[in-house]
């Protein structure tokens, strides 16, 4: 009995001891477990991106940010996140041609632009608008980031200014593209028409967004003033050649893919040409074109800045690996991993199906049959036949790599510098020797007998006698542009700037060959008479469709971006 009682006590004691032991254990463990609430688990950041704070902190990252601005120019977004080479990687060329009459869309792919049935929600004009402004904002954000980095001594002010110059050049180019699509030309009332909103500060938070909301469309003239200011800065601060630029990713590869002084000057020539300011086109052009060419060698003109010159053959700049030739002053770089894709890239949309392209954009009989485009012009060799029999058409062979879509998008070639200068010279001073030399420099290399030299030119070279008057000469220069820049997207800009020109206007959007209606029989050279029919009707300059509409996505949320009349 006692024993069992004792056992009971012992048992109780044991139990109390056990409980104490466990309680101590429990308290220890509880403290340990509560400690598991370590902060580390929340201390996580992204692995796939830097932040706006950390990007402009090292020279390499700043270089990356500048590349990012070029990327915005080369491969902006399209509906659903696809990349179709908006705005400058391919789309500006395709849209520029589709708004004109010299290239045609064989299927309905580009019909909205081609037939001018665009509205405030059609994708092509909408995404040009969106990606141009996206490029502009990235340029502005980078300008601000670079300025901050210079202030902190992370990079030198020389390098900083060079980066800013690149950003301002791209910003100017984007605004100019907006002006030629969404506003009337400068020469309509000397720029007093409604222009665009010129964005010159970065928008990246609530405050800057609020400030941006107060901005409204200014005059076309204001736009050109700002473009020229940006380009002046670019000219001053850009190196003559990117090979001199510090720490580029790859010097050779950047030769034509990054902006240089010559690109800034050429773009200024373009802006002045649109303004009808012939004298200043000449002033700018003379920086890139020597006053006297070499008379005995070809090319005769070699730029003092950057050493740019024409290739001996027209095709060379399109076949030289990576286009690192002497002629392409500025182009957008595309790569197999980064391009406009099968729905956008130039070789895919313009290339022949026989090499894997889609052959959607083709050469129109309108330019093919142009009387100025001689039958034996070797630039005809840069066209191929797509399809077979009566249904076949010509298309360009300038873009050659649909398999991996690596063809760059040509933006400024030395040929354009020469022809802009020739036009201004003709308009300002008439058919001068220099004007003739400039256009012949471009034209002669495509003539039978080769480029020759100014001393021994090919037989068909232009002379004073070739033209009845100065206007005939200017017309020839304008035709030369159409021939030289087939499939390079320059047609719309020319239609736009000359829309009110007394002598060279197309009167608005010209009539075009119908979608899918082009046949082989429509193509002929030499005869001089058109054998094609134009079932896509012309639109007069005063028609509202001469301008693209401001996208609905903009006007819905920004009352200050006024709509173009008629939409």
């Amino acid at each position, binding site marked *: 009995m006692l024993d069992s009682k004792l056992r009971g006590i012992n048992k109780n004691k044991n139990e109390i001891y056990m409980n104490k032991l466990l309680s101590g254990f429990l308290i220890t463990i509880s403290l340990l477990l509560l400690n598991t609430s*370590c902060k580390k688990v929340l201390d996580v950041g*992204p*692995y796939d991106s830097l932040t706006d704070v950390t990007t402009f902190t090292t020279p390499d990252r700043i270089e990356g940010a500048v590349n990012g601005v070029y990327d915005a120019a080369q491969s902006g977004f399209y509906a659903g996140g696809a990349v179709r080479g908006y705005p400058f990687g391919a789309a500006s060329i395709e849209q520029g041609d589709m708004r004109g009459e010299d290239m045609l869309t064989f299927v309905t792919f580009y019909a909205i632009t081609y037939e001018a049935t665009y509205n405030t929600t059609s994708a092509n004009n909408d995404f040009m608008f969106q990606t141009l*402004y996206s490029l502009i904002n990235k340029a502005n954000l980078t300008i601000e980031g670079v300025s901050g980095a210079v202030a902190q001594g992370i990079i030198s002010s020389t390098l900083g200014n060079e980066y800013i110059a690149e950003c301002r050049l791209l910003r100017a180019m984007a605004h100019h593209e907006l002006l030629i699509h969404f506003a009337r030309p400068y020469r309509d009332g000397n720029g007093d028409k409604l222009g665009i909103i010129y964005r010159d500060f970065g928008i990246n938070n609530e405050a800057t967004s609020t400030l941006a909301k107060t901005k409204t469309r200014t005059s076309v003239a204001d736009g050109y003033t700002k473009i020229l200011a940006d380009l002046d800065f670019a000219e001053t601060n850009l190196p003559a050649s990117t090979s001199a630029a510090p720490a580029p990713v790859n010097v050779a590869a950047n030769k034509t893919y990054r902006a240089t002084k010559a690109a800034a000057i050429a773009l200024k020539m373009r802006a002045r040409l649109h303004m009808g300011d012939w004298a200043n086109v000449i002033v700018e052009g003379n920086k890139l074109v020597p006053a006297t060419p070499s008379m005995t060698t070809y090319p005769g003109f070699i730029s003092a800045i950057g050493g740019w010159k024409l290739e001996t053959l027209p095709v060379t700049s399109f076949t030289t690996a990576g286009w690192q030739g002497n002629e392409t002053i500025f182009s957008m770089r595309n790569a197999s991993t980064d391009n406009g894709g099968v729905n956008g890239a130039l070789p895919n949309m313009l290339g022949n199906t026989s090499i894997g392209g889609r052959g959607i954009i083709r050469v129109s009989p309108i330019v093919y049959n142009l009387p100025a485009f001689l039958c034996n012009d070797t630039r005809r060799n840069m066209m191929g036949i797509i399809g077979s029999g009566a249904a076949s058409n010509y298309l360009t062979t300038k873009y050659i790599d649909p398999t991996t879509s690596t063809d760059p998008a040509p933006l400024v070639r030395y040929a354009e510098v020469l022809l802009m200068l020739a036009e201004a010279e003709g308009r300002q001073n008439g058919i001068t020797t220099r004007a003739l030399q400039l256009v012949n420099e471009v034209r002669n290399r495509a003539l039978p007998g080769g480029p020759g030299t100014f001393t021994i030119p090919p037989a068909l070279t232009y002379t004073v006698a070739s033209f009845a008057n100065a206007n005939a000469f200017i017309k020839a220069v304008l035709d030369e542009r159409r021939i030289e820049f087939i499939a390079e997207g320059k047609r719309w800009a020319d239609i736009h700037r000359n829309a009110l020109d007394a002598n060279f206007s197309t009167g608005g959007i010209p009539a075009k060959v119908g979608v899918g209606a082009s046949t082989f029989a429509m193509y002929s050279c030499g005869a001089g008479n058109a054998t094609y029919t134009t079932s896509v009707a012309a639109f007069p300059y005063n028609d509202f469709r001469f301008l693209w509409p401001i996208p609905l996505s903009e006007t819905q949320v920004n009352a200050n971006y006024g709509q173009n009349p008629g939409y």
Partner: protein
Amino acid sequence: MRKSILVLSAVFVFILNAAAQNRTVTGKVTDDKGAPVEGVSVTSPDGKQGTTTDKDGKYSISVPSNVRSLSFSNVNFEAQSRSLGSQLVVNITLRPRDTRLEEVVVVGYGTQQKVKVTGAIGKVGGDKVANLATTSFDKQLAGRVSGVQVVAGSGSVSAAPRIRVRGVNSISQGRDPLIVVDGVVTFDGSFSGVIPQTTNVLADINPSDIESFEVLKDGAAAAIYGSRAANGVILITTKKGKAGKLNVNYDMYMGFSNAFNKPDLLGAADFITISNEKLKNANLPNGAFADAANTNTNWLDNIFEQNPYVQSHTLSAGGGSDKSTFYMSLNYLSQDGIIRTNSNRRYNFRANMESRPNRYLKFGNNITLSRTEDYGQNDGGNALSGAMAGAMRALPNVPIYSTTHPTGYNITTDNAALGSGANTRLIENNYTNIAYVLDKNKFSNQRTRVIDNFFFELSPIKEITLRTQASVDYIAGTDFQSLNKIHGDGRGVSGSIFNQSLQSTILTWQNYLTFNKRVKRHTVTLLGGVEMQRNNTQNFNGQGTTISDPFFQSDNLISNTYVNQFSGGFYGKRGYQSFFGRLNYDFDGRYFFQFSIRRDGLSSLSKGNEYGNFFGGSLGWRISQEKFWNSAGLNKFIDDMKLRGSYGEVGNELSARFPYLSTYGAAPYGGASGLAANRIGNPSLRWETNKKIDFGFDMTFWKNRFNLSFDYFNNKNDDQVLDERQPPSFGIPGGIITKNIGTMENKGVEIEFGAQIFRNKDFNWRIDLNYTSSKNKVKSLTAGQTEQTIAGPNNGTFNILRLDNPINAFFGYTYAGVNSGNGNPMWYKEDGSLIQYNNVPGAAAGYYFAVDKNNPALGAATTLGNRYIVGSPLPTWFGGFTNTISYKNFTLETFFRYSGGNYVYNLSRQEVWNSQGFVNNGVEVLNRWTTPGQVTNVPKLYYARDNQVNLNGQLNTRFLEKGDFLRLQNLIFSYNFDNRRMETVTKGIVKSMRWYVQGQNLFVWTKYKGIDPENTSELGIDNASVPQLRTFTFGVNVGF
């Protein structure tokens, strides 16, 4: 009669008292079906005498003569006492205990008696889905629980269904419920980069391992999961071994399926007529011609597996002693899809053990290993090589194979498109030979999954339990995609091979303490704990294009067989730090109170802003326990009645990993690496808040034969994360700044009803019914805006967010039929006026004109006008209905599901079956307008004028159809062998056996003209969807 017996008994008692001597009473105890009950204790009122019934339910007890009654009790039955009269034989029938109210419900970090539950929790037994032929259990939850909607948008056997608890609770963020397996948050959704919509990681879990599903529907129940509870929580509890007996089971089923419904397409002859008519009306020459062999190809027959086979085998064992229990299972499943390239294979192993060496300690481990393989194909709705998209468009008058093409298939000489045969036109848009594509291209995902869960429990005193639990959920997988270089999607790049390695991990550590104390009539349960979770995702891929030879395209990248090489990858983390607590208080089993709180810290929110508190409270009153209930005589009709009310505020975490940050992402310029702003962050961004109100009651009546539950719910979804659109001219990445701005509401009622209509020894009839009605309304958007576009097909032009309308309402034009005068389609403008699009070639072709109905003359030129809201894709009522009848050993169970109140946009009808291009059509097109005066709903055909004839690119009411349906989801006919005979015959080797035949998805009653009213995207659009399966299986369950 009963009364007279009572009077007689009383008289006998009196007589017996007088006699006062010992006697032996015998008898038999049976249940309400008349089956004998073993193990019933039979005792005298003072407990001095007692015995239990034997195998045959018989007992014999000797009691003194002063014992005037006997008590009969057993855990499974309601106790009874019977007065003793003079009789020596007392037979008694016991009524089964209403175990439903004693059921235990899993509630998150613990369990609770169902009778005490004050939140809205739905429960489904694992047995409901265990024997269904399905790759994943979630597909079979549809119609089982009120308030839970499950839609399998595709018939692909690999696809994950959409599960929505009490409506769509987020406009832009996640809408799936949180899935918690054995207490730990687990992966759900897809795990593949090549077949993104067609894998489902929940298929890694073997349905027959599941003990039960609990769905936490209201705020109070879900609050314990805080920031991730807004879309409801599904708790899955897996099977564990039970102490005492060893159970070994073999479950198998096998069967076959067919396409539940196929699109009705044109044959060759009709195709030729229709195509040439399209061309002729557009002034084009005939293009379609019969070939010499009069070929009539049914392309659907080629892409469909004729009788896709399914089989599943599960071997499981469970058991243990009072110190340790274990359960393990092995499963193999193989299910083939209706598209012949689609299939799913699963190899699954599960094991768990729990041990309690003494009363202070308990520990256990629970591991799942699974290997799942999914095979699929391009299912793109408009994809040139999409299986359904291609087969429906393929020309029926050309053969599949051709001896003249080197591949042996009918392909054009440039390999770009399906060969034209005798036709003089190519198939529109270069649609491919889908037979070749399915034969040559490969899409697969193979994954290995480990879920392990270890816990250790300490209970120093019996009121306190401290549990620590560490878990890992790890998935590693590989994707493989091979696109043949000759024809199909791979042609453009000369063949493509894509290999991807994917890996995701969730690591969780939970520590919590439970305190449970009962003092007199007060019961308190307290829970408090911490949890941290880390979530890693990573993948890398390699791709090769321009393949040297198709031979190297079979199973993996092979070095040096391709020219162009691409690679990519991703790495990302997320973290959660949580503190949680819950108090349950119950007074006398009558009044219940519960309060939960959770404090969550999320790595996806900005520093200083990352923590938030979530809470929920609920009250319950079991009114049937009040004295007045009985005194008022209510208990005679209503056995049990509980009123409930709850309120909770929970969160919906944001899908993006770091939505608050302004980031600079990779922005290579032509391949040269670069950085660019890719998001403008908003540092004040928070989770979406979901305020949930619930009122309801649960009752059982008429002697527990009927049960009824009712709930009213209102979910107010505040702080909805919406993208405030910035003007595109700002150039902000994505054009948006994301903010917590919107409000959306879901409200409705839920009813669950069960009835044991008839029950006796041989015959048993039970009905279960549930009904949910739910209405969704967008209450606020960006300040000053009444509507907002959404991302979706055609840039979201088909659906819209507009104030006071349901989310993603259909937005389009109203069809007014065909102008019988000229065959032009007509539309109503917003002002009610009629317009027509003139398809008649000529000067006026291609413009809109006002119209007088049935007058061929064209009125004034006009425009199409504005779109308006024409319907909602969200069902407003849905539910299920089960009818179970058993007679002796036979059981017949039928399960119906229904849903409606929504519309479905039949995009296949618009873009394929009525296409104006040179492709095959559906039979509807045969009703096209051909002659003046003809009244029809199908406009005159006109080649290539899809945008005008069918208004392609825009939604219009011609193709908007009601989505109401009633579906006979399951029919199971089973035979249960008599257990005792089975044991006798097999000498105890086989303890139980059940055979069954089953039909799934047997029939649908609907007016929907497409393949299936449930084949829709979340936006309500049916685009070339894969037909659902109708499956017949035979199965056996054997217990050893």
